[in-house]
């Protein structure tokens, strides 16, 4: 793989709560996104995937650590640099209902980035460009003057993708891009994302809890648990040889569309619940639910270490 487009080092994002408590949403996370690849981030609800992604690209301010885009710290950019950077990194949001301003027409929604950065010289050019992008994402260009409430979820997500594409980004953070959609539409959106990647040389960071989808499209995968990365690996290695007990449990939960195999295989069923990120357990954060936990796991925090080439895991077993 080529050089990293985005490099995140020891990133932390804490939220202050009332009563002097802090919620450690993202705690000491490091990873890199290489140019042209698809990085999947998986984990259960509330494990900090979204916060991690948004902090990594600078949508949220960080608490500590650094996020470098092509070697430059995103959180320390000057205003003009930052504006330029915004054109290179874009986000597709999870909820296509909340992420589109209901009072704006489709043309104004998609053109927002172009308006901010003045990518055109005349109204006609603006409209032409928008219509071109709309046909690229599979929207009928004659819908430019409609309002978002006239569209279905899948169509709205296409509008969201078009808005991100309009500024010609290099890296797109897809924050659960399909989890709010019908199953039949999910495949369409994924195929669209793949198609656009080919055409525009995009790099994706895909946040999801849909393991089979992530397996299908990602090159590399990060598994997160309670604000920390517990395993990092190439997609194939992760599914063939999951090392961390949490990853093993996650992967055994993917249904297999064959009743014979499904009945015969063993499922690792986790007990207990995700501990609170306000008061994370000492030692390994997963220890309380881990079927293989030993005394050491409760006292001492495991470091993320390289076990095989490109396969990192944070567990005392390795």
């Amino acid at each position, binding site marked *: 793989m080529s050089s990293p487009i985005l490099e995140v080092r020891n990133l932390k994002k804490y939220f202050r709560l009332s009563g002097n408590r802090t919620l450690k949403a993202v705690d000491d996370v490091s990873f890199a996104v290489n140019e042209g690849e698809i990085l999947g981030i998986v984990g259960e609800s509330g494990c900090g995937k979204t916060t991690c992604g*948004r902090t990594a*690209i600078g*949508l949220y301010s960080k608490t500590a650590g650094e996020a470098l885009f092509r070697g430059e710290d995103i959180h320390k950019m000057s205003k003009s640099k*930052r*504006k330029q950077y*915004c*054109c290179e*990194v*874009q*986000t597709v*949001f999870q*909820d296509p209902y*909340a*992420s*589109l*301003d*209901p*009072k*704006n027409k489709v043309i104004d929604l998609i053109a*927002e*980035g172009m308006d*901010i*950065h003045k990518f055109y010289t005349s109204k006609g050019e603006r409209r032409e460009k928008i219509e071109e992008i709309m046909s690229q994402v599979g929207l009928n260009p004659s819908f430019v003057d409609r*309002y*978002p*409430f006239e569209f279905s979820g899948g169509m709205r997500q296409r509008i*969201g993708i078009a*808005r991100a594409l309009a*500024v010609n980004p290099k890296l797109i953070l897809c924050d659960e891009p399909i989890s709010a959609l019908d199953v039949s539409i999910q495949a369409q959106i994924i195929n669209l994302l793949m198609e656009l990647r080919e055409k525009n040389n995009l790099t994706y960071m895909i946040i999801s809890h849909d393991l089979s989808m992530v397996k299908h499209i990602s090159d590399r995968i990060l598994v997160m648990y309670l604000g920390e990365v517990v395993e990092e690996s190439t997609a194939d290695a992760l599914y063939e040889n999951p090392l961390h007990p949490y990853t093993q449990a996650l992967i055994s939960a993917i249904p297999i569309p064959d009743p014979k195999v499904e009945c015969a295989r063993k499922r690792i069923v986790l007990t207990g619940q995700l501990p609170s990120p306000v008061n994370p357990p000492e030692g390994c954060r997963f220890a309380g639910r881990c079927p293989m936990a030993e005394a050491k796991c409760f006292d001492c925090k495991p470091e993320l270490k390289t076990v095989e080439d490109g396969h990192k895991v944070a567990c005392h077993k390795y």
Partner: protein
Amino acid sequence: MIKKKANVGMIISAAVLIVIIIACLMAPLSPYDPNLVKPLEKFQSPSAAHWFGTDNFGRDVFTRILYGGRVSLLVGFLSMVVSIIFGTLYGIISGSSGKIVDGFMMRLADIFMSVPSFLIIITLNIYLKAGISTLVITIALFSWMSVARIVRAETLSLKEREFVLASEGLGAGKFWIITKHYFKNVFSSVLVASTNSIASAILTESSLSYLGFGITIPNASWGGMLDGAQKYIMTHPSLAVYAGACILITVLCFNVLGNSIRQSYDPKSRR
């Protein structure tokens, strides 16, 4: 999004208001001078010549109602415009600022809300030059707070919405987000607030004129006419009825209109 569907209340109140506004605009077409005293014609009953009769100075009551309506509606409208513009800006700035600025601005609004505004408006009207502009400014000075509160609350909830985050991600500055997203999304609540604001401004203006602090006599205004009619309430009660009914109907219509607009925007109140 909710379709803007008109209902019966909205149509009737809008129609009545339009009739009143057009009638007031046409006031100069009346053959009578609203302020000319004709002692020989005083206290006439309603007739074809004098539709609402004449008052204690022999002036045509219908003509005076129309001229008075111009004052009431103008003051109501202008003070609404002033307070809505100021209140909206104040609310958006307060809502989109940080905790400290927001807290300070809202406490300031609370202070304005807690003073007995009517007394201060009376005092100001004594010291300032009487006239429409003074009325407008003093009424607006004490009516922007409710608008500001509504707008601030809406802005606070808009701030957390994902499309605002998306806009920030596209490189938008604060000014951009305010003009492109906040203004458009608070519009419907501001519209409702503006009709209520007109209604209360008309009431305040009438009360002031009734107490003699508003429009100076002999110029007509609905409140002032009520004041004039008061002395003859036992002998000629109808004089008070016309001006009183005008205030009542106008204020009622504005309130019904506001309520209907709110309902047509509110998905929960639609069956």
